[in-house]
């Protein structure tokens, strides 16, 4: 492309404008793309997929979400980690334009959910906490009716359904009623259903809650493939292993607030020690022991059934414990996880 060409100028202009008016950037970007000036490979990144500032969701006087600010970028896999009742689902409902925000600024795909709900939703895929499938219909029919909500032509839906059922590893159950599927299969079908409109953003609310380990791993594998395919994902979960596996970046939520934000490894590095030594002593109060070990660890957490010693080298500290004449019933040295980050930040465990 020639230097100083009108395209180039417009690009520079758009860039400048985008910096000026962050929220409106997407509109101009779309405009530029339609005119052929900006393409998806262009250096000019699109506006964030989701952008919220000081977002609040209030039910009567109770604030389920209490002023959170988050930016999710294109192609990212973004997580909301927190225990039940942290406000994750309320946040998802606001982002998926099903529930109006009580306060704050929210843009999804560059648009305002308040004024452009249907437009935004036509570009979203939502996997809600409950599957909301038509139980009396077959798998294929479920995809068909959902695709029809997006006004896709039947032929198109059937083609996509074949691919998606294959992706969800449900092809051989195509004509079965959903009633007959296991929980894991239903979740995979719900994900396939959410993909039928080829959304720009896939939102998954607690995708593996209630599934057995095998079904979870299968689902993770599918989500991982979506992620490597460049689909922008937003995932809520209260499983720290899930968040570590799937998320490029995440926020930790508690009581409607964000208590930490970053990449999983980074969060662990920032808020915890490399290793954790878990000690369990018979029936005796763990409190008493903790006093004796204070000099060995950076931090000690006392749980009802065990002690957590945050240390740099677990084995070393364990032998120090032994050398002080203590013989724990059970001991375990492990790496720090997001669970520990949550414990450090809130003083509570994620799953109780």
């Amino acid at each position, binding site marked *: 492309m020639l230097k100083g060409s009108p395209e180039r100028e417009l690009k520079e202009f758009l860039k400048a404008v985008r910096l000026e008016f962050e929220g409106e950037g997407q509109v101009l970007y779309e405009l530029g793309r339609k005119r052929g000036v900006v393409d998806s490979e262009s250096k000019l990144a699109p506006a964030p997929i989701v952008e919220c500032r000081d977002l609040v969701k209030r039910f009567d006087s109770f604030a389920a979400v209490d002023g959170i600010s988050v930016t999710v970028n294109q192609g990212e896999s973004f997580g909301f980690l927190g225990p039940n009742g942290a406000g994750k689902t309320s946040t998802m409902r606001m982002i998926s334009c099903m529930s109006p925000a009580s306060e704050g600024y929210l843009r999804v795909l560059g648009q305002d959910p308040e004024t452009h709900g249907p437009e935004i939703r036509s570009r979203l895929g939502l996997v809600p906490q409950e599957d909301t499938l038509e*139980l*009396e219909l077959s798998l294929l029919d479920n995809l068909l009716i959902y695709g029809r909500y997006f006004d896709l032509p039947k032929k198109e839906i059937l083609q996509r359904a074949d691919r998606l059922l294959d992706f969800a590893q449900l092809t051989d159950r195509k004509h079965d009623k959903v009633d007959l599927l296991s929980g894991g299969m239903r979740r995979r079908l719900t994900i396939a259903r959410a993909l039928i409109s080829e959304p720009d953003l896939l939102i998954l609310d607690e995708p593996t809650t209630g599934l057995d380990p095998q079904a979870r791993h299968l689902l993770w594998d599918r989500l991982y493939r979506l992620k490597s395919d460049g689909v922008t994902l937003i995932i809520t979960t209260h499983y720290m292993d899930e968040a570590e596996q799937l998320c490029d970046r995440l926020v930790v939520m508690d009581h409607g607030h964000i208590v930490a934000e970053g990449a999983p490894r980074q969060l662990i590095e920032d808020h915890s020690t490399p290793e954790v030594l878990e000690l369990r002593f018979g029936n005796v109060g763990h409190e008493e022991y903790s006093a004796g070990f204070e000099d060995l660890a950076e931090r000690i957490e006392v749980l009802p059934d065990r002690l957590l010693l945050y240390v740099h080298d677990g084995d070393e500290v364990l032998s120090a414990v032994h050398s002080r004449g203590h013989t724990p019933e059970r001991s375990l040295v492990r790496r720090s996880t997001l669970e520990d980050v949550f414990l450090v930040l809130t003083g509570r465990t994620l799953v109780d």
Partner: protein
Amino acid sequence: MSSLTLRPHRPIPRSTVRVVLLVRANMQRYFKHRLLFVTGFLEPFLFLLSIGVGVGGLVGGIHVEGETIPYAVFVAPGLMATSAMNGAMIDSIFNVYFKLRISHSYDAVLATPMSPTDLALGEIGWSIVRVGIYSVAFLIVMAGLGDVHSWMVIFCLPAAMLVSASFSAVGIAATTYMRTWQDFDLVMMIQMPMFLFSGVFFPLTVYPGWLQLVVSLTPLYQGVALCRDFALGHLHLWMLFNVAYLLIMGAIGLRITIRRLAILLLP
């Protein structure tokens, strides 16, 4: 901790006691929805008023075995038998299906000393108790509306209870085969025509001869005939056939129920 340690075996309650416990549990659950219980009395009352008084006024008298009786007197025992059937079928089917397939509360019950036989008898027993309560109310309403023809109407109560036992046994047996709510419509498909054509509303004499025979062999007809004969104070040998029919049907239903519950719950 001591309260959690194992104690010596307590004696397992006898079977009859277990069934009574289950009936009581069902009853408590039902009475908790007080409005549901109270409005249940309304149903037969409304039917008696509408069909007996409203339609009865149009019909006038009706000839049965040589005497002319008001239509309300004719239709009331039929409605009583029907309401026993509906009460037994709908209640047992919905309840049992819900507990079996949705809430899985039977699994919890079977973790106690209860057996599938107890469960079946518990459901049927509750159905009898419930229909008994409503039938007493029905008799009182009948008396209040002046639809009592003979003192023998009092025997309608055990007759209705027999109907409820028999139908709930069959209903539960059918429920154990149901896989979705849609299957209920099959039940409706049997129940509805029986209600309309088994002689509740008009005597079988309106049918041609062969159809009379067919209708007189339907399960509901046995109940209707039994209740009506008692209500009109007519005793026939045929009534023994009606009773035997209902007893056998109930026994078959019970047998199937017990076998199926064992298969479904104790695989």
